[in-house]
Structure formats: C-alpha cells, structure tokens
C-alpha cells in the first residue's frame, strides 16, 4: 500500500489508481463532470482539477495517477474559482433553462415548444438528475448574471427513442466515448484532436452504425440526450425510485436499474459495474419495457363460449374449469393424455410450480419448455 495526502488527510491507495478513485475510497469528494470511469474517458472538463504540490498547474484528478507522497488540495479558493469559472462558461455556452428561465432569450425554440407540451413543468427531462445542475447548485453559481452566448442549436429528433437537444450539450464527449469504447459501435465520432474544422464539435450520430442501444443516453450528464418515452413522466414531482432487476430478453441476463416514478418505469439503465453486463444494455433491454403498459394486456381470465368468442370469468370459475377438465381427462385417458409447456422467459419459480403441478398432481412427465426456439 502507498500513501498520499489529500486536504491534510493521509490516505491509502493502490498503485494504478487515479486521484479520484483513491479519494472516493477515502470518502473525499472531488467533483467530476466529463469523467466516465467505465470507458476511461475524462480529462476534458477540468472540473476535477486539484492542486498538487510541486506542480505549477492544476492536474485533473480523474486521469492523474496517485503517487507515493503526493500532496493534494481539492477545495482551495483558486480551485473553487476555477470550477465556478468553468461552470459559468458552460451555462453561458448552452441553454440550460432550469436556471435560466428568468433570463430572456435563454431558451432554444425547441425548448420553448417543448415547455408548452402537456404534463410539463420543466422543459428539461433531466431536471433533478442533471450532473451539471448538481454542480451549479453546489458551487452556488450566480446564474442571474450569466449572459447567454449567441448561437443556433441543433436538434436531432430522428431517433425514435432519443431526443438530442444540443442546446443542453456541454460537449463533454461522454456519449462518444460510450459509443466507441463501451459499446464499440463507433457511431458517434470522437472530438477531433486539433484544428477542428467546425466551430463546435457536436456528438452527431452516424445512424448507419448506430444500434440504438442508448448507451449515450445513459451516460449523458445533462438533459441533452433524453428518452422520448419519459416525456411528461420524468419531470413529475414524485420521488424517483431505483429498482435493480434482470433483463427479460436474451440469455445474457443483463442487470438493469429501473427508474420508477409513481409506479411506472420512466427509464431503464444498466447497473454500473454489475456482472455480467457492466452497465451496458442493448436496444431491447433499454427501450423494450413498455409492453407491460399496453392496453392489450389480458386483465381477466377468459373462457371460450360455444360460438367461439371469449367471455370474462373469475379466477375461481376459470381454475375450476381447468381442474375439472384435467381431472376428467386423466381419469378417462390416463395421466399421459395431458401435457404442458412452460415458459423459458418467465421466472424460475413459475417453471418450478408448473412442473410440480404436472408431476405431483397430474402424475405425468409430459412437461417441457420452449427451450428450442
């Protein structure tokens, strides 16, 4: 183990850890904004700048490795001033209207239109979950004094599930990194290294490569990328509940975090660092959940009539009918005249119950599941 000092406190770290990682383990908070640990992306926003003794410049804590004997300060007046400066510039560059509603011309036309949509108190679907907003509050940025810079903003609404409102984009590069380094789709070009041809780099999507996995949506720290399915739901006042569960589609078994408001899922994200998916999801895992709210859902047991139509029935009625029919059949034709197929998409406990029913009560092994399709 090696030791370093942060804000006068001696802390332990393992070789190879960054300053942020070491600080986090020691319970010391260093703000980050662009940093995306899973992809190694960072070193862009400089919000995590810290003072390192012996260095004439601030160093980014997210991408500087901890060193034996390093002496670090994380909240000096100069650093706070720097963070305030950076946050102020970010606010001025974009249209972060959660703070700036009082300031004329601080909204993009898209946002104004969006704010007029029903169900909305705020235009920004990330309100309350926005990492920029959190920092702006933490550092008490005097938002009223900010003069928004002029500029047109791009809106990309082509994606069926994601809105890209670049008036809220802070160009942190997380989405590009998620697309390239995590999902390996290479659909969002990285920021160029120098001599950018365009005035502003924007994480525009090459939809030919896009697999619509929404990893970019998951990592966006602001409301620049927002889920269309959450429109009108995410800004509800109700408390946001996070529930961990397992994806119902393929056999990988990705771990999901459901964001739930008022008993309804508003977004699905991958659980960071969880096995087996390490926070990743695919298009179905992320966006394929709203079938549960479909109007087509069966809500009562149904029994077929003589004429072929179905009539609603009570559970008692329906189960009674099944019990009678199965018992009669078995009595007349033997236990092996009945059969059942269990569901390989439902939970283990359901399959267990069904095979128990067939074996222990119907006394047949004619039980299978749909494993072969």
């Amino acid at each position, binding site marked *: 183990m090696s030791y370093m000092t942060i804000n006068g406190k001696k802390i332990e770290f393992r070789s190879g850890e960054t300053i942020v990682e070491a600080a986090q383990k020691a319970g010391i908070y260093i703000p980050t904004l662009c940093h995306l640990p899973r992809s*190694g992306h960072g070193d862009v926003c*400089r919000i995590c700048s810290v003072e390192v003794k012996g260095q004439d410049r*601030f*160093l980014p804590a997210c991408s500087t*490795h901890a060193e034996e004997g390093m002496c670090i300060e994380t909240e000096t007046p100069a650093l706070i001033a*720097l963070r305030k400066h950076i946050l102020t510039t970010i606010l001025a560059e974009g249209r972060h209207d959660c703070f700036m509603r009082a300031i004329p011309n601080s909204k993009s036309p898209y946002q104004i239109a969006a704010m007029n949509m029903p169900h909305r108190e705020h235009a920004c679907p990330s309100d309350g979950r926005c990492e920029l907003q959190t920092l702006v509050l933490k550092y008490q940025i005097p938002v009223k004094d900010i003069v928004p810079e002029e500029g047109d903003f791009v809106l990309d609404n082509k994606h069926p599930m994601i809105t890209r409102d670049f008036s809220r984009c802070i*160009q942190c*590069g997380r989405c590009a990194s998620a697309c390239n380094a995590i999902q390996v789709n290479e659909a969002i070009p990285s920021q*160029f290294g120098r001599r950018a041809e365009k005035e502003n780099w924007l994480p525009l999507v090459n939809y030919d490569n896009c697999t619509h996995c929404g990893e970019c949506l998951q990592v966006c720290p602001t409301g620049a990328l927002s889920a269309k399915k959450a429109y009108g739901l995410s800004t509800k006042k109700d408390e946001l509940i996070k529930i961990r569960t397992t994806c119902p589609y393929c056999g990988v078994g990705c771990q999901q975090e459901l964001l739930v408001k008022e008993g309804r899922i508003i977004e699905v994200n991958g659980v960071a660092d969880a096995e087996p998916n390490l926070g990743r999801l695919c298009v179905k895992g992320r966006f394929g959940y709203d079938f549960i709210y479909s109007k087509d859902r069966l809500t009562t047991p149904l029994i077929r009539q003589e004429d072929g139509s179905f009539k609603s029935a009570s559970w008692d009625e329906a189960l009674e009918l099944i019990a009678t029919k199965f018992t009669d059949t078995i009595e007349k034709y033997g236990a092996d005249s009945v059969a059942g197929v269990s569901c390989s998409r439902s939970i283990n406990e359901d399959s267990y119950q069904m095979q128990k029913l067939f074996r222990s009560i119907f006394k047949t092994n004619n039980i299978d599941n749909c494993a072969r399709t």
Partner: protein
Amino acid sequence: MSIIDTWAGDKVSIETKAVMGFGGVTINDSSVDVLDMIRAYMDKAAGESCGQCFPCRSGLKNIAKRLNALCEGNASDNNSENDIEYLANLAKVVMSSARCDIGQTSPKALLDIIENAPNLLAARKVTKGNYTSLVTAPCMNACPGHVDIPTYIENIRLRQFDEGLSCVMDKCSMPGTIGRVCERPCEAACKRGQNGTPIAIRHLKRFLFDKNTSPNIIKTEVAPLAKKQKVAVVGAGPAGLSCAYHLSKQSFPVTIFEKQQRSGGMAKYGIPDYRLPAAVLKKEVACVQALGCEIQYSVDVGSDVSVQELLEQKGYSAVFIASGAPDAPSMRCENEQHCTTGYISGIEYLNEATRGNKIIHGTRVVVVGGGNVAMDCVRTALRHGFTDVQIIYRRTELEMPADKLEIHEAKLEGVTFNFLLAPTKIHHANGCVTGISCQKMELGEADASGRRSPVPIEGEIFELECDVIIHAIGQKVTVGYILGGLSGEGNAGLDKYNNLEADPFTGKVSSFNNLFGGGDCATGPKTLIAALAAGERAALHIADYLEGKEVSASKIEILEHALESIKIVDDVEIAPPTDLTASIPLHALPVDERLYDFSEVEQGSIDAEACKEASRCLRCFRILMVAS
C-alpha cells in the same frame, strides 16, 4: 521568462520586428501594433484549440473575442482597464487548467504584455498587420520532416487510424519504413522522456501503417498526371521517392530513373529484411506509383542517359537528383589492397544480403564500426550462420552512434562488442583474410563534435583471428558523373566535398534553374527522415518553379529552421508527474527463433496498446508568431 529574440540557425538568420510565442513577447520595432498582433496571435491560438477541454475551448475563444472588440475600439463600459483585468484573469485560468500546451502556453504572450505594457492594449481602431505563425512541438521541431506528431498520436488515441496515417503522409511518404528504422530524434525531444519513457513515436507510426490494410493507402482527390510539365527524378531512394510522391500529389507527371532493379535505395539495399521487410517498401512504392509516377529501373543516369539529355531531348522540365551516398570509404589500414577474399565493405555486404546472396564464408567475422550499418552487418552475419561475430569500435558504447535498441538487440543475439580498439593491419594468406591487428585506445579530450576522441595506448596491439572483416565506417557520395557534361570544367553544381550543391530549403542546385537535388547526395550520409524531408521540400519548390513562381524558402520554412536550433521545452518547465501508465510493450521475436531466417524481429502492436500509448502524449503544442 526567457524570450527568444535572436534568430540564428546555421543556414539563415532572420530579422523580426516582433515575436510572440510560448516564451512571451519581444518587440524589436516600434512600428508593430502590439494590440493587433496579440489579437492575431490569440485568434490563431483559439483556432488551434482542439475544443476538448473546457477552459481552453471557451477561454481562448473569449480572450480572442474581447481582443477583437478592443481592436474595433470597443472597450466594455468604456474602460479598457476592466478588459485588461478580464483578460488577465482568463489567461491565468486557461494557463493553469488547460489540458495541453495550446492552452497552457499561448496566453503567456498576453500576460507578458499585460504585465509590462498594459497601456498598449487600450481600445482603439487598428490596422491589421501581416504575421507569420507556426505551430510546433518539441517532437515536431526535432523531426527533420516536421511531421505533425502530436496530431497523429491524438488520432490514434481517438481511434481515427486513417486520419492519423494521412496526417503522417502529408509530410512523410514512407510511414512504414520510417516507422521501423527512423533514428527518431523526436523521441529524444519528447517531454515525457524528462520523467520516464518518451512516447513510442516511431512505433506508433508503424502501427498506423500496419493497421491500414487497403491495397492503396492514399486517398487523393487530385487527378493524377493532370499537369503538363514532366519531372525526372534520379534515384528511387527515400529522397527521390518522397519528391516524386509529393510532385505526383500535385498532379505533375514524374519519372524516376533508378540504377538498381528495385526501389528504395539504401532502405532497400542497405537495411536487412529482419528490420524492414520488403513488403513494407513495396506497399510504399506502390503508393507513389498509384499517384501516376513511373519508375524506370536499371537506368544509370550519367552513363545510360545524361541529365542534359533528360532536360533537352526527353522533354523533362526539371530534374531532381537524389543519388544518395552509395559508396564506402576505405578503412585506411595496412594490407587493405591485398585482400581479395574476406574483406568487404558493410554497404556491399548488406547490398548482396538484401538480394538474398551470401558473399562471405567462414564462421568468424569482425565488423569494424559503431553505427547502424555495423549493427546491421553483425546481425545479418549471425543470420548467415557465422558463429563468432565481433564488433570493433574505437570509442566506448556511450559514444556509439547506433540506435540503442539496435545495440541491445545485437547483444541479445550474441554479438561480442570490443570497445576502444582501432584496426591497424589485416592479416592474410594469399589474399584470404586470416585476422586483424588492433590498437588499443583510450579516450582523450573532447573533439569539435563534443565526443572524446580516442587516443592510442602505446604498444598495446593485439591480433584477432577471423575469416572475414567487414568495414562499416561510413558512406561516400558519388554524384559528379551524374551531372556529367552539365557540370563543365568548373565543377559547377558541386561543393568542396564534391557533394551536390543544393539549397537546403528549396533543393535548387546552384547555378542551374531546372536542376534540383537533395538527400545524402547533397548533404553527405544523413538520416532517412532527413532525405524524405529534403524530397518533400524540393517537390514544393519544383512545383513553384514549374508554375513560374519564385524559388525561395518560405517564411514558415525559415522560421521552422530557425527554431531547430532552439530548445522548445524551457528548462524552467516542470515535468508532469511520473506517468504510471506503462509505456507500450515492444513485442520482439524470441531470440532463439530469430537467427534462422530474416523474419522481422520487432512485431506490431494491437489497437489497445497503441491507443494507450497515444494517451500518454502531453500534446506540447506551441504557437509562434512573428511580424517581419
């Protein structure tokens, strides 16, 4: 802070009215409008900002914006002092927190002005001046070809491999070769090296080349051969190929006349396959040919056809001579002239070896010399089955000019190194080498080159038995016969060493309009990258000549050259913290698998390794602007 104000390279000195750069500001002439110039400088800096890190992206943009307002005569609240305070604050923020040196160094010029002469920044309408600016970096500055190294390394970091390769190929037409055998002055200049291992710049270039598997790696929009005037190039070595490549890219029809049967010159016939596989050169040559360049082999310009004929009868509008330094000087020791068997030059040995011929026989070989050619000879000899392979060098390992990596590999493979020995006499039986006598040396005073010269130790001579002696102590230029009749009696076009007298910038051969030259034949034996650079520069100026423009060094070229003699990294700069990211692992063929054939020893890297290595780059870009 130190200020660059004397501009003296070994070939030019330039006078400037004012300089703004990463070290601060110098004003030599009161006619320079400092406000306008700092505006231009910060505009340039803002334009160069990559836009990734927030402080530099917005900071430089806002500095430039405010300076532009001042230049329009608009002070905020009619008080320039507010502006100056604003600018000073912003400059400090950017310098203290930017990710790379664009942000960390360029506001220094502004701060210098604010500290010393803030009154010069008072708002007023200015007349815009003309300035020359240059973006460089320690590695770029050290590279004779001024390849934009940090940019292609950033391309690798961002996995933009095609863009990276095309960035390299803007300046360097043989990335696969250079990526393997360059002497890499860039790495010696790398700031990471101050406090650890420098970035593996050469290896990353090779990575880019290897990564590209398309049959034709260059994508060009120009129509090949669209222009009328033809250019002849003498010699298909690095300088010749480079010149042809860059001329072809500008649509000039080019014909290369090559004495040998293959292209590549010294890269082909002087570097063994285990360091530079033939396929690499083949691909690079194919690249030049794909641009429309024609190569005629087995044509010895000077004997089969004269330069004069090319110009006057064959319809070439200009000739570029790049005949290299293909001969070996003698060792000047006793019995040299009597040995017919077992005594050859390194150049001849490698020349035959690269053609697949083994022209020496026996088990024991002594190689005299300490450069890369000597290393190539010993390692080739091992692969030719010699079991006792020795090197004789008259100084110590420290002074050896060969690449450290080469020395290391040679030792690994089993070469014996003998230092502080100088050959005096060859022993022979009927012209067959049997051994060599050596004088033991010690190091004396430092000579002009700064290296301590070896001095003989009286009476200490001993003999080494061997079957073959290879002398690898240098190369010689023979360019006179190529000029032939053109040269006349007065040796026009040749300098006092009988090298081609070509302008170091333009390549123009003195006293001729349409004759250009470059590479080893003009400079004496130098590095491969220097030859490529000479070819590239000459191509630009040949194009100028053909288009009727004046042929002279551009301001940027002069500035670039002037900077070469200046250390770009200031001594007071604090090195970054130790970089814990391990440097790229170099994969080499295991020693026991190497010596059976000429398979390439150094192996390529995988994406992840290259990207990780690229992420270690500090991007030490610096911007310089002069008013002249």
